[in-house]
């Protein structure tokens, strides 16, 4: 029986729901798993059940799952403790792998964020920055692998149940697990003509499509709807239920890819590659609204997003 510890850090909780999405398969898996620590399910305290201990403690486990990035000192501490106690550490979801949506905050210095939220907020009564009994914020949002070594990355917002199942099975059997280095476009059934003759559309405008017939829909980028498919790793559309097609998840809803699976391979430069992908079909990258945030929506950690330097003038 494999011992599992799960921890959630800077996260919404969607990744835990995604584990539940395994459905009946989870029941088959459960006999071989023993959850020793999981704040979302179990009342297991860090400093002993009655608070009698002085140091944070997580029980030893074979597999450690961490969802969410790192925003404050407590989360950093928990991640370090997880690494110490778990033989294999898995980063669950885009926040743990790349920083995720919260890492968009890395575009601004920490002081500016605190000012905006606790002092300059127009809609709430501000009482200054709270300081008592709260862990201090880290200088920026970190992906888990910036703080401790991570053995397996499972990106996705949230992850695909089929991928979780495959990864867990591999871990239980002691095999390595790695997502294939393919782009969303490689798995996308839409029709490509390698050129675009329309202007960029706003994100809320609809695509043209025939319901259910993905192969008759024109590539969304060519329709002028910005799709991050060319620079995003594939795997979101992997069929889980019987009769499902292998179509990227957002495309299945006739929506453009938002890039939650992150870069196709380690060390890739999605920002630069997306610009060349757009110019190769004749779209003007200058017209993209909020370009930095758009190109880094889920991958702002790992130093990809940073505050802009003050303009230096001659």
């Amino acid at each position, binding site marked *: 029986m494999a011992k599992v510890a799960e921890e959630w850090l800077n996260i919404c909780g969607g990744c835990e729901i995604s584990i539940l999405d395994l459905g009946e398969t989870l029941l088959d898996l459960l006999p071989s798993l023993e959850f020793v620590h999981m704040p979302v399910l179990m009342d297991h305290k860090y400093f002993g059940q009655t608070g009698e201990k002085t140091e944070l403690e997580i029980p030893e486990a074979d597999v450690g799952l961490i969802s969410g990035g790192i925003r404050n000192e407590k989360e950093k501490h928990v991640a370090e403790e997880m690494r110490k106690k778990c033989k294999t550490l898995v980063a669950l979801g885009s926040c743990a792998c790349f920083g995720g949506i919260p890492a968009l905050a890395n575009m601004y210095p920490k002081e500016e964020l605190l000012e905006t939220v606790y002092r300059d907020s127009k809609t709430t009564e501000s009482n200054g920055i709270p300081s008592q009994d709260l862990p201090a914020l880290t200088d920026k949002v970190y992906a888990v692998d910036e703080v401790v070594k991570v053995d397996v990355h499972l990106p996705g917002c949230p992850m695909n149940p089929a991928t979780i199942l495959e990864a867990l099975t591999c871990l239980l059997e002691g095999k390595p697990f790695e997502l294939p280095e393919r782009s969303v476009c490689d798995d996308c059934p839409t029709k490509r003509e390698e050129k675009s003759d329309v202007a960029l559309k706003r994100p809320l405008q609809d695509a043209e499509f025939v319901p259910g017939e993905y192969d008759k829909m024109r590539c969304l980028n060519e329709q002028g709807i910005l799709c991050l498919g060319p620079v995003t790793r594939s795997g979101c559309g992997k069929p889980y239920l019987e009769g499902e097609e292998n179509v990227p998840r957002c495309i299945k809803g006739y929506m453009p890819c938002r890039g939650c699976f992150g870069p196709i391979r380690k060390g890739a*430069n999605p*920002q630069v590659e997306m610009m060349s992908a757009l110019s190769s079909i004749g779209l003007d*990258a200058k017209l993209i609204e909020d370009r*930095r945030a758009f190109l880094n929506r889920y991958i702002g950690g790992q130093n990809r997003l*940073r505050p802009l330097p003050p303009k*230096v003038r001659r």
Partner: protein
Amino acid sequence: MSDEFEPKIIAFCCNWCSYTGADLAGVSRLQYPPNVRIIRVMCSGMVHPNLVINALTKGADGVIMCGCHPGDCHYIDGNMRAQSRAEAIELMLEDFGLEDERYRLEWVSASEGPKFAQVMQEVVDRVKELGPSPYA
């Protein structure tokens, strides 16, 4: 050893004009700062924006691209491609949080040894003022 910041500058020079211009600066014994590392490429138009961004995010403090004057390109319109790429590179620098002056495109012909030396001096002076790249 002085503690002054010595920037690393990568210079992409096209084989037909600018590299020969750099050669001329050398054989004419013109002085220019030793911070510049020259990389010879066949044409300024072949340098993908990725290479510029990679240079700047992996240790270089500035990049200068040298090509033939408009109309002189050995491959007819390679330098014009470099120019349209320069516009895209400026957007990318903004996205990466780098000052746009860390990248410069300059036309240097084979006979312009003094211009080459002068441009290198200007670039090094400017990058020294900007300080090290935030990625260094």
